[in-house]
């Protein structure tokens, strides 16, 4: 199965990534695309700054991708995670899952996002509209719980 993993500062193009994943194939019946976007938190935020652990980020996402491939009959996966300064309305993360049927694509994309949130070595810091660097975003217990529902 084709799997693309990229950690980059640049924006990504969902349509181009989807075309790359499905090009020349007639066995894909379902593509689920999850895009995570930067919110302005009610106008408070100027940007989110994303720090990551180079090397481990790629390795950890590859391990998560391998788990998804074990669990669902997938025809392709693409994961792109950005780092650096990201403004409200901009994309942070993309997960694309392609399968013959919708359930595998939905479940794999949802699983990958839950694992990325709780396991991939990225950290967000808020930059506020008043020009100050705000706090590091705290991990949510709900994100650990979301991951635990996948068991094992």
């Amino acid at each position, binding site marked *: 199965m084709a799997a693309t993993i990229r950690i980059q500062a640049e924006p990504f193009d969902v349509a181009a990534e989807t075309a790359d994943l499905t090009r020349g194939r007639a066995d894909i019946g379902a593509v689920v695309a999850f895009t995570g976007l930067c919110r302005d938190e009610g106008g408070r935020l100027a940007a989110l700054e994303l720090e990551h*652990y180079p090397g481990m980020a790629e*390795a950890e996402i590859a391990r998560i991708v391998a788990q998804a491939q074990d669990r669902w009959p997938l025809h392709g996966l693409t994961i792109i995670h950005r780092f650096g300064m990201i403004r409200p309305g901009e994309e942070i993360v993309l997960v694309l899952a392609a399968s013959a049927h919708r359930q595998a694509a939905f479940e794999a994309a949802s699983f990958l996002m839950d694992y990325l949130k709780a*396991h991939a*070595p*990225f*950290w*967000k810091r808020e930059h506020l509209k008043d020009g100050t660097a705000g706090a590091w975003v705290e991990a949510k217990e709900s994100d650990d719980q979301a991951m635990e529902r996948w068991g094992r």
Partner: protein
Amino acid sequence: MKLVYFAWVRERIGRTDEQVDAPAGVETVADLVRWLKSRGEEYAYAFENEGVVRAAIDHVHVKPEARIAGAQEIAFFPPMTGG
């Protein structure tokens, strides 16, 4: 071995990485944290709340009881907030 720090762990310790030689008896990640806390206020601050800071050995998440023998790079960081 090389230690690397991220996010507020990095900020509290005041450096991104360092080379250390842990003394004899420091065998696990928990031992290493205990020894680091003895080295100065900045480390004591970074690791002040037991069990909050996460660790990875050579790019793999590990628990405090993981043994550090043979490790090339040990990372300490807050709970992840990506995605």
